[in-house]
């Protein structure tokens, strides 16, 4: 492990000078003398770009009902005044660009977007995981075409856009039990706010459980008899994206339950084993309802809490 870290840090040390050579030293600040030239002038050269841009929400809004004079400038609302660019199209300091090659600093790019999109869902962008990872708005959004049904995403839908980086989660969603994301019935933003939130995992609620209660409102309770790890955090027992086990559980039952329960009485300290399945019972293994089917939940079926007066062990 530590050797691996050493190796990677060594790589970074080597890579850093390389990047300095690769990136042209330039200021992406728009030259103060630049002036607005109007989108008609832009389209003279960028007709193909305009062809795809024209169908976007930005184009419609800017052209049909701009909120302010800046929006009415259309292309220059985002790219800044274009006169210097028109004079010298290769001067990368003359215009704000949103591509790798153009090299405008990410902070400048994002600042341009936040001119209109500050506040609301982007209120916590500053300092968020994505901001600290130096992500540009343009990494996830392509405002120049309708690549997605809405939100001007960089890929054809939200999940594909997130999977550009979050490949572990993409693999999780393909596991035996998973949230219905590959089937198109939910997307990452049902649980996360990629633009920042007050939580560490960019959750769109104040706690993990509050996110889960959005769809699993029945589990909100509170119940007459509560199960402590359930009340505190659903991910104590469940993988949020996908799992090799039934019900997105983090481990196979009954061992999942036995990670916490090893009591002096009852059956929860018992060593359960192969041969106690319905098949094993036919061979003399000795069946156990703690191994078969839903195992512990064959009896403790109200494991998320019970409202029955006899429900202290979550059986009713």
């Amino acid at each position, binding site marked *: 492990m530590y050797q691996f870290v050493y190796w990677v840090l060594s790589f970074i040390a080597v890579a850093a000078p390389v990047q300095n050579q690769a990136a042209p030293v330039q200021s992406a600040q728009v030259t103060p003398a630049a002036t607005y030239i109007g989108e008609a002038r832009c389209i003279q050269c960028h007709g*193909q770009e305009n062809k795809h841009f024209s169908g976007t929400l930005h184009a419609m809004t800017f052209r049909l009902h701009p909120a302010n004079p800046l929006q009415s400038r259309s292309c220059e609302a985002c790219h800044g005044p274009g006169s210097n660019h028109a004079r010298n199209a290769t001067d990368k300091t003359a215009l704000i660009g949103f591509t790798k090659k153009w090299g405008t600093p990410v902070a400048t790019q994002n600042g341009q977007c936040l001119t209109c999109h500050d506040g609301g869902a982007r209120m916590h962008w500053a*300092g968020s995981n994505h901001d600290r990872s130096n992500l540009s708005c343009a990494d996830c959004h392509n405002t120049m075409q309708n690549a*997605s049904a809405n939100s001007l995403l960089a890929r054809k839908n939200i999940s594909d856009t997130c999977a550009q980086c979050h490949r572990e989660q993409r693999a999780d969603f393909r596991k035996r039990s998973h949230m219905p994301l590959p089937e198109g019935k939910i997307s990452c933003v049902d649980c996360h706010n990629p633009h920042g939130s007050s939580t560490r995992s960019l959750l769109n609620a104040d706690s993990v459980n509050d996110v889960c209660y959005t769809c699993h409102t029945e589990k909100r309770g509170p119940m007459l008899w509560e199960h402590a790890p359930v009340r505190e955090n659903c991910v104590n027992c469940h993988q949020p994206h996908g799992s090799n*086990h039934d019900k997105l559980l983090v481990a196979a039952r009954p061992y999942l339950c036995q990670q916490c329960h090893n*009591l002096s009485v009852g059956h929860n300290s018992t060593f359960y084993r192969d041969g106690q399945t319905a*098949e094993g019972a036919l061979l003399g293994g000795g069946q156990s309802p703690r191994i078969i089917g839903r195992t512990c939940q064959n009896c403790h079926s109200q494991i998320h809490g019970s409202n029955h007066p*006899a429900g202290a062990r979550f059986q009713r």
Partner: protein
Amino acid sequence: MKILLQTAVVTLGLSLIVAAPAQAQGSAGQQGTPGNALNPGNSERGVPSDPEGTGIVVGSRSPTGLLTVAPTLEKAASTTASGLRYRAKIEFGASGLSGDEHAAKFREYKDLPSGAYPNNFAVSIEKPKSAFHFDGVGGGVTKNDQYYGFDVGKYNTWRVRGSFSEVPHFFTSTYDSLWSGVGTSTLTLSRLVPGGTTNANTTQAAMQSVIASTSQGDVDLTRQKSRTRVDLTLPSNWKAYASYTRERRDGSRPFGAVFGGGGGGGNLEIPESIDYNTQDVLAGVQFAGTQTNLTVQTTASFFHNDIDTLTFENPLFITTNTIAGVPSTTFTRGQFDLYPNNRAYNVRGEIVQKLPHFLKSRVTGVFAGGQMRQNDALIPPALEPLTGGTINGVSTTGVWNTTNALSQTTADRQIGTRLADVGIVMNPSRDFTVRGKVRYYGTNNESSDYVACNPLTGQWGRLLNNGSGGSFVTPNTAAGNNPPGTLNTGYNGTACNLAATRALGLAPNVGDVPIRSAPYEYSQTNSVVSTDFRLARSSSLEAAFERENFSRPYREREKTWENKVRFAYVNRGFDSGTLRVSYEYGHRRGGDFVAAPLADFYSGSLGPAPVANGTNMTTFVRNVDQLRRFDVADRNQNIFNVRFNHGIGSMLDASVGVQVRDLDYPASEYGSNQQQRLTTPSFELDWQMSATSNAYGFYSLQTGHLQQAGVQTTGTCTIGNSGVVASNFSSLCATASATSPLFPISRTWDVSQKDHNGAGGLGFRYELGRVMTEVAYTYTKGRTGVTYEYDPTALGINATQAALAGNGFSDLLFEQHICEATAVVPIAPRLSLRLLYWYERGKIHDWHYDGIDVNPMPANNGAYLDVGAQSYKTHWFGALFRFDL
């Protein structure tokens, strides 16, 4: 003809506007675009690319360095004489499905059609003069995964959005249902005698016969969710918004029911009926000024369960426990109190204040408060009058089948939530950023103190499983534990007053009977300081320190704290790539670990501990002392992440990522112990061969390992035996050791679970002349091996059992292949034919279900009716015409 079509489009649009609120009677809360398996994200599929590409720049890349997707050719909008612009399309045709199309795993969240089928449609209308726009979409029409959405408004002024989405959820297609009335509040046996006949063996034979002749069927539910949201742009940078969502869940799912005192009394798999309704309301205002951002929002959520109580007829001949004098055939029915109606409220305020003259700072504050509550009517412990029965000598006749048997008749539960989050981001220079943040989140359990005591009898404890079992405490009547003459009814005269009962000073006979419900709550405070240094123009280094403090009353460890340090490095300076690396180390420790934190909520707290020789103290001991529950245990954590992408040439992207999570519980002898590790390397290639063709491939390999240990109890902890005396029983018996009378370490067992998962995909898109072809193949294979070590002699496992047990189970396995192939053939300028083929193969093995199909009743009073998930292979063909208006 054209006028007719125009009229149809406008009419369809207007009808959607009207229809959407009506559909909103179905649901809640979907944030993203609705879609389904054939139309994920409602994205356009089978649309040809624009051969002219994006424009001047060929091979344009995002700021991170990933290639921009090639744009598609959108059909031009039509315009009416009045200036209304519109565009519409519909895709419809016929499809066929063959193979194991009824397998639950295949249908789990989708509903692929068979027969004539409208796959999707979209309508877009715009009135440039007034900046009015309308968009309507839909798909999966009439199917269980159908969806619809609309978006109407005036740009920058007002906007109304609505969506409706239906999600099927198939749990099993191999369920042997014995009941009629599935999906309702009453399950009635169709062909069996409630309560069984003669004895358990006779009853088992009758049940086996019926199960064998019962056709297997589905257990599933459907979720319908709809949402309407209104956004208004107000003067002076203010906005207001409100939404209403409604969700309905309807169906059933497999569920367990038990009789007697628990294991051994009889267990049965029943279909739990589901009929849930949830309504959410949200409203808020936002202000976005140049220096100040503000949001004030309130939400309310109401959950209603239309099947609050589920009564089912019991076919088993059960074994009763605790109750005497009531034959087991009395228990013909069981009853569940299903999830209660509940509601939740939340109010939150968020503010951002920019301070450009103070180190270019930005201060953020979030404050929220909420409450979850329910006050459902409680149900009686028993369904039957229990005539002629006794519990500890007290008659049960007519004193348990009424809510008068409860200390309170409604649940009266409520939990408050509080959030305060204050942060600052300062930029003292262009190359240096400092951040600080303190976040407090806490829950406050304000529920009433529910006590498990029957006011009609004065007995402390609970009648279990509708009367077929019990868990009660009485004064200890063994000589020497209580004053001579103490009766086992000694607690019964205090009218269920806990303080008065404790004031009696009578030692209880058992220590593990729950007598109160525990009001769990917690608070969490995170304090974070981080800095960013810009090392060079395109690279930066972040260093962060975080302290997390948890407080959990009533848990094994009330206080835990974790220190985390994090380093992250980002280098965007590569010509066409970006490197992101992060490493985090977490060190969690805490206060004293208490093995029995809920002592006050159990019967052991009713009086002093027994002291007499010969008294069995086993129930006064809780978990083995050396067990550490993983969420409060000491933990060392290393998390390492690398993500690197780089262009190879101008039209090929290569990406690699590695994530390693390494957890260690250094102080845990039992429970989750030793090192746990999850490693996920991922690779991806994306090749844009031209503006109209591309190919890609990806693969993620995930390996995981977790280890745990337990110690199986034996014998009893009895005062006077094995060195146990009144003063040492707790420490001696609760501690696993070579000589422990309860937890001898020779009976320790270790279990290891190893995951090995691979997920990959290959695909291409190629346009040959006017024909576009697209193939997408995904593959996943997950395998979990469960192995163990144990001493068969110490655990009393005989040779036959040991031979069957071996050193582990056969691997849990899931393998799936999905291949989607598409060919689009243009027929006319606005008409094309899309041919689709969907191949899906799934292989699943889960040892939990081994043998259930041939042996659904491995014990004479236990029945498993879900045979488990089945492997499957299916083919789906579709020929869909797309018509653009």
